[in-house]
C-alpha cells in the first residue's frame, strides 16, 4: 500500500485534475512538532482520566455515584 504520510493531494475543482506532492521540510517540521505536542496532550488526558477513575472508585467505596454528587450540586458532568 502506498505510504501517504507527508503527501498533499491537490485537486483542481474546475478541471478535476489530481496531483500529489511531498511535504516540504518546513511542513514536515510542523507535523513533527505537533506530534510531540499531541503526545503531551494525550498524556495529560490519560492522567485526567486516571484521576477521575480513582475518584469514582473512592466514591463507590462510600456507596456513592457521580450522579449522587450531581444531585448535591457538586461536580460538572
Amino acid at each position: 500500500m502506498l505510504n501517504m504520510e507527508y503527501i498533499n493531494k491537490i485537486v483542481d475543482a474546475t478541471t478535476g485534475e489530481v496531483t500529489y506532492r511531498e511535504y516540504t521540510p518546513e511542513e514536515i517540521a510542523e507535523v513533527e512538532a505537533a506530534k510531540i505536542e499531541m503526545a503531551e496532550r494525550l498524556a495529560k488526558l490519560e492522567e485526567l482520566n486516571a484521576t477521575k477513575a480513582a475518584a469514582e472508585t473512592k466514591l463507590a467505596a462510600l456507596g456513592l455515584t457521580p450522579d449522587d454528587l450531581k444531585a448535591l450540586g457538586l461536580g460538572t458532568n
Partner: protein
Amino acid sequence: MTRARDVANIDGLLTTTGDTYYASAAGTPARLGIGSTSQVLTVAAGVPSWATPAASTTSYTLINTGGTSLTGSSVTISGLGGYNKLFIIIDNFSCANATDIFIRINADSGSNYRAAGFGYYGQESTPSLAFGNGSNGNLADRLNLGVFYGTTQAGGASIMIDGANGSGLKTYQVSVGGNPNGYNYPVNQGIYSGSAITSLVFHALTQNWDAGTVRIYGA
C-alpha cells in the same frame, strides 16, 4: 444648456415631470416617461427604459464534481475563485488515531483566523467564548474542525463561508458531529482576514485521512 432645453420644448416632447429626452434613432428625438418608484434606468433593444430590478437570488452549484476523497496527510482543493459564498460538506471522515483536524484557507498558516464557539476538551465540556483565544486547540492559524483523541475516530462536518470572493473579511460557521471522544469545537463561528479564497486545504495534522468525501458548493 438653455439652447438644448429650448430644442426639447420646441419638439414638444417634455410634457410631464420626470420625462427624459433621448434619441430613439439617429436624429430622432423621443420622450421617455418617468418610471415607477424603485425602478432603474436600463437599456432594452438599444434604447433607455425604466425597469424593475431583478430580485437578488442565491443559487449554489457543486464546484468539485462528484466530490473529493480525503487521503494522505492533507488534501488541497483549488479552483474555488469567483464564488462569494462557499458551503462545504465533509461526509464520513475518519483518522486512525489522535490528531487535530482543520482547514487552511489558501494554504494560509498565518494568524488570520479568529473564532469563538462552544468547545470540548477531551470528554470534558469546556465552553470557550473568546475569539482566537489560542487555548484548547482553538488556534488562530487555522479554521478549526476539532481534535481526535481516541482511535478510529469518525464524523461529519459542514462549513459555510461568506464573503469568499472579496478582499475584505470573510465569515465562517462550522458544525462538526461524530464520535464524542475528542471533538474540540463542534460549533464555532469565526472571521478570516486573508485574500479572496481560491483554495482550501484539509489537514489531519498528525495522522493520515483514512476516509471522507468533501463536496464544495459555490454561489
